């Protein structure tokens, strides 16, 4: 497999973290247009950790996740009581605020004769931890896939637990969940923080794959895509958003013949899909049918 194909597969895996982050909020009943902000927070935090402070990548990724969870929690505090469109707009505004903060962030240090660190709109070059340790593209893909598999295993465990049932209950009917004794605001805040951490982990891995990030990487376009992944792939299972990423990037790559028009073609296809299947391809009904079919065997 050539390096470009490996890069595409790695990007599919990386954007799956963002897709799962948006999905987690969707099943809790909230639509966020702002998960790209925490993806960006993770990318910058982990990049600063390894490239400027000389930390090993696992420590930098853990720092990125903690920061992602913390910032998401802070955004969630004033916004969590908003519902529907209002919450979506609040997350979009917060994400734009973060993007502007990235543009204002100038923090550089000279390393090996080169200035390294965030330089506002000029971006952040030299996130070389993975490169300097001689990782080949297929090895980095294997690493990202393994971490993604662990995250999916976590989702599967939560889906079978009381916590998973509570999250879905809050997503379906928060008033009814409150009647059953669920602290809706607290649970949603926890979900917001977890989704922030997950997006930040994806961002940390993305920054080290790309070696370069800039504020524009984390604008509204990425937020729309991250939300679309779950809505296309389906909300019935955590595999849904991953299917969404595969369709998104797969379609984009397979429609190269349309060149600059392929986003238009892609947008049209997504619109048709959402009209035909409003809760995505792997919606709850399909997932239940698959489960029943598997259990009767």
């Amino acid at each position, binding site marked *: 497999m050539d390096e470009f194909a490996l890069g595409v597969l790695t990007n599919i895996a990386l954007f799956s973290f963002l897709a799962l982050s948006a999905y987690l909020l969707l099943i809790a009943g909230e639509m966020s247009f702002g998960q790209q902000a925490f993806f960006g927070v993770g990318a910058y935090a982990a990049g600063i950790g390894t490239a400027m402070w000389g930390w090993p990548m696992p420590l930098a990724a853990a720092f990125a996740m903690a920061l992602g969870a913390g910032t998401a929690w802070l955004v969630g505090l004033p916004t969590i009581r908003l519902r529907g469109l209002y919450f979506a707009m609040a997350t979009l505004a917060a994400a734009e605020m973060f993007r502007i903060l990235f543009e204002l962030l100038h923090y550089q240090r000279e390393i090996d004769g080169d200035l390294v660190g965030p330089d506002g709109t000029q971006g952040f070059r030299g996130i*070389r931890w993975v490169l300097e340790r001689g990782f080949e593209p297929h090895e980095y893909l294997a*690493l990202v896939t*393994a971490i993604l598999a662990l995250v999916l295993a976590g989702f599967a465990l939560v889906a079978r637990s009381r916590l998973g049932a509570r999250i879905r209950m809050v997503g379906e009917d928060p008033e009814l969940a409150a009647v059953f004794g669920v602290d809706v605001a607290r649970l949603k805040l926890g979900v917001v923080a977890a989704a922030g951490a997950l997006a930040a982990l994806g961002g940390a891995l993305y920054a080290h794959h790309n070696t370069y990030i800039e504020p524009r990487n984390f604008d509204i376009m990425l937020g729309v895509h991250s939300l679309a992944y779950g809505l296309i792939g389906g909300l019935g299972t955590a595999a849904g958003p991953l299917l969404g990423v595969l369709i998104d990037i797969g379609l984009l790559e397979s429609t190269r013949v349309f060149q*600059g028009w392929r986003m238009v073609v892609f947008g049209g296809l997504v619109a048709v899909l959402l009209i035909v299947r409003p809760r995505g391809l792997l919606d709850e009904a399909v997932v239940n049918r698959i489960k029943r079919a598997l259990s009767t065997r």
Partner: protein
Amino acid sequence: MKRAFALMLLVAAPTAALGQRLDAEVDCKPTKHDLVYDCRVVLKEVKSGRLVSGALLSIGADMPSMPMAHNIKPVRAEPGAAPGEYTARIELEMFGDWALKLNVRGPVRDVIVKKFSAREPDR
């Protein structure tokens, strides 16, 4: 999966740095065809300023505002006449700001990212 876990252990272990820090001067000139550019790249080491010849260089491009949505498949650059010089023809998808990704292999290994603005010509 075993291989992936072995890699995770490798990530956790402190290892020696292998990469060489390079810089590049990139000059892309438009051709008579829209969105097609002839690029000249000069590679050099950051620390010593020594020109880097004999490397395998490929050039890709990504639109920063649409990561993954608009990118071009990397093209292989050919060695130029002068030391450290490479040339390549790239074809972008649309006008706007792009991040050129220079992937260097061979005697040295590095990835260099340079910004490039593809402006629509006056007609």
